């Protein structure tokens, strides 16, 4: 890790003033569970680290307009223990539980989960976000068992976010502040597949801070997340699915299905979701939706197995949401 300047501002305004126009100027520290390892591995080399933990206005999980406001400093553990979350958003609770390390849940923040960098082993070994060597993708020609099955461009890593799929399915937004103002972005649009080495995998500029996540009211919508992980303890999922269902009687009125850990961004399975309209959720319809969700998958040489895992995650998330797991 390089030596760096450490700032611990008390207000958001002060924090924003400490950021720069390049990623090497400054990095934002909340939980630090990813940032510190990036810095130790010299993947990130910020000249300044801006600790936002002392900024009160960025804390807490509160009910807001029937929905939720999750502050940038709210930890995964706070989310998991929040009565408001537990009452209406089992998909978020399941995603939090999947981060199966009390240490990471205690330190890591929900916003940080959205902003963390990919775990691609080529990237983390210093071969760059897109891991290209001599015009060839190291991922495509090399060891890709944990990589993307939904890439149309050069990014072959998978989004590491645990909450992204659930938040997208719930229609959540992030609020982003910079010295010149603030903006709101749907979580669905916050993730983007980079096409160049200088690109990021999220819609955030070096001089911006994600200040909060706004989750709309669930209004009784059934929701669930299912993760396929090899290990019981802390382990990156191989595939996940988050679903949100509104029901009309026993049948689905509307559905949203979002896959995680299978593409460089969370993957919205719109066709699979719309095919459920008017149907009851059962083993047969859930299986069909799972298959539909992976219809466009393009596995690499060594990760064809993830296609089935994603389909199974969808099926099991749907059955869980419908109370049939």
């Amino acid at each position, binding site marked *: *890790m*390089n*030596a760096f300047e450490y700032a611990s501002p008390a207000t958001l305004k002060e924090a924003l003033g400490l950021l720069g126009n390049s990623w090497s100027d400054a990095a934002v520290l909340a939980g630090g569970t990813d940032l510190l390892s990036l810095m130790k591995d*010299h993947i990130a080399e910020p000249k300044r680290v801006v600790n936002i933990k002392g900024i009160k206005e960025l804390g807490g999980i509160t009910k807001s307009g029937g929905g939720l406001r999750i502050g940038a400093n709210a930890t995964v553990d706070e989310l998991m223990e929040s009565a408001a979350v537990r009452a209406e958003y089992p998909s978020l609770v399941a995603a939090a539980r999947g981060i199966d390390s009390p240490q990471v849940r205690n330190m890591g923040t929900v916003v940080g989960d959205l902003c963390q960098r990919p*775990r691609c*082993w*080529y990237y*983390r*070994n210093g*071969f760059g976000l897109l891991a290209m*060597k001599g015009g*060839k993708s*190291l991922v495509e*020609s*090399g*060891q890709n*068992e*944990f990589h993307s099955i939904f890439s149309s461009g050069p990014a072959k890593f998978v989004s590491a976010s645990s909450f992204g799929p659930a938040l997208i399915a719930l229609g959540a937004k992030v609020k982003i502040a910079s010295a010149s103002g603030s903006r709101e972005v749907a979580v669905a649009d916050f993730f983007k597949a980079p096409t160049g080495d200088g690109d990021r995998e999220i819609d955030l500029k070096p001089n911006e801070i994600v200040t909060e996540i706004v989750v709309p009211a669930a209004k009784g919508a059934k929701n669930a997340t299912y993760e*396929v992980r*090899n*290990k*019981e*303890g*802390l*382990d*990156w999922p*191989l595939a996940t699915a988050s679903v949100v269902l509104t029901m009309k009687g026993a049948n689905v009125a509307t559905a949203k299905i979002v896959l995680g850990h299978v593409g460089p961004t969370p993957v919205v399975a719109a066709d699979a979701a719309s095919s459920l309209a008017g149907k009851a959720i059962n083993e047969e319809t859930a299986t069909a939706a799972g298959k539909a969700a992976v219809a466009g998958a393009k596995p690499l040489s*060594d*990760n*064809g*197995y993830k296609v*089935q*895992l994603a389909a*199974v995650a969808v099926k099991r998330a749907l059955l869980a949401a419908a109370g049939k797991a």
Partner: protein
Amino acid sequence: MPNYSYPPMEQRRVMGKRITRLDGMEKAAGKAKYNSDVRPKGTIHAVGVFSPHAHARVKSVDTSAAQQAPGFAAVSVVAAPGAEVNWAGQEIAFVAAQTEEQARDCARLIKVEYEALPHLVREENLAKAGSRGKPAGEQVTGDPEAAFSAAGAVTHEAEYGIPVITHCCLEPHGQIVAWDGAANKIEYWPSTQAISAVGGDLAKQLELPATQVHSHQDHIGGGFGSKFQSDLWGAHAAKLSKMAGGKPVKLYLERREELTIAGVRPSVFGKVKLSASASGEMTGWDSTTWMTGGFAGGGLNADLLPYVFRNVANRRINHTAVSTNNGASRAWRAPNHPQVCYITCAAMEDLAAKLKMDPMEFFLKNLDKTPRADTYKAQILKAAEMIAWKQNWKPRGSSTGTVKRGLGLALGTWGGAGHASRCRTTINPDGSVLIEIGSQDLGTGTRTIITQVVAETLGLPMGGITLKLGDNNYPASGASGGSTTVGGVSASSRKASVDALDKLFAAVAPALGVPADQLEAVDSKIQVKGNAAKSMTWKAACAKLGVSAIIAENANDPRNPGGLTTGGVGGCQMADVSVDTETGIVKINKVVAVQDVGLVINPKTSDSQVYGGVIMGICAALMEERVMDEMTGRFLNADMEFYKLAGAGDIGEIEVHMDITPDHDKRGVIGIGEPATVPTIACIANAVANAIGVRVPVLPLTPKNVLNALHNTTRRLA
């Protein structure tokens, strides 16, 4: 000749009891100091510069910028210009600075230019190895072809493999070392499995007499066979210390280097053909195996095939060691055995399935090809009872539903006879007892069992014994490898303590009015044998010594252990697993382990050894795999994130049955660390095959490999 034999089983008061580890609380409370925790005054810190190339020639090494950096203390270059490096992670230089952070900054300032050379880092496809494969001579017994083509013979032919796995010691390799140049003396705190020898090994590297190195170690955070030497980094840490005016240098490997260069277990891949008569008599074995043990090649003994059932009448063995551009292999808990056990027991399970036989019956039917048929038979039947084999076993692939359940078994063997060990027993006039032994407690309970043996011998409570180990000033004891420690240290401490006690008997015999050989030590007293009335307290007896302590030293001689230790054990393990056939995730319901291990000094610590062995086997069966990238030549998962180890939730239930019987007891003490880890991988893999109806040929049993097997998309090896 004194009688060193242990008291008969039924008369033992301390040995054979389930005593909790003496240092358990200290460790659980975080009070135990590992050498990586030791910080002598003035300690400076060193880190390494390692090759990023799997194969390259070093063109230049420029340390000038590092030497100008804040905190710089000393630099030692390993690979001079012109040197060839043969694996990514090979040592180029080590640099010391006042703080660890400064040392890292200095290391990044060392500029190394390389000329990259072609490399090979993956070995599973033997065809790609070319001249890097070094075949051993073919071995043939009998006529395997005749066996395969005999009328009524049922044959099975398939591929199997286990990748390279690492030791993954939680305390990495390394040391604190201080070289006082003026006195030419070295104080050395290594993480080692060989406290008596490792100082001499360091001295040899530095061309010093062994007398000049004083080694200390109270605790070690894992070795598993990889920590016998002082290593390159030990020598360079010492040199840095000398250059820095004798300041202690702390140099421990980072996690990445710990996995990459501090030792791994060789892989094994192979094609096996075997045959049996229709009634299940195994008639022939033919295997062509290959593996890598790193750049130096070697490291797997295929002559052990077919494992345990080696006396099959017709047998052909071909084996090739592939030199790859990877760090060297080192002994890994039961070298060779887990790999050849898997190859053998998997192929046998598969043949049994083809024969439509219960594999347990198939194994039982062929025990005449093993060196200990009676022991294995009893162990198989006991394990079967523990796991309810008869009730729960179903023919392969007949489990129904999404989550399928299966049972599997495997057999193992190991040596484990005691190593050479010396021990000194001192009985002081105040009654205190000191045991000094140049051994080490790897966390297995060595402290505890030595104390039990001495307490038993002297008729004292364990609290009356002070034990000192972990220092090369004590009488030399062997390295802790090959499960040889318990047999060695129990024999030497028994013999030294019997000798000391005999001297005490001689000193007090006149006062008790009987010849010394009529005395015994019981319940903190010296008494006339069988006559408690005629006695004196231990303290009073020792007071008779006047000013002279009794000092007795004795040894275990491995060539003549006098019945105190032997080797050669068998074990049977069975696994009960559930496999989610939609996700490929394997859950361990239960593993049962039945093991004979001679005389058991402490059933609690020996059970713990079996738990540990089984857990390591579960990790290797389900998750462990070194992932090498051919394009970059790198070990991609040299971390604890994608190099996965099982956690508590993945282990399932483990039930241990130790064969503690008078017959086994008569064999003396035998080591247990290694045998218990041998059959675990194979029995789990067999249980998975039984559950899902197909073999997952190449381990680990990850979702990828299980689903590929279920969908018949497993890639052929060659």
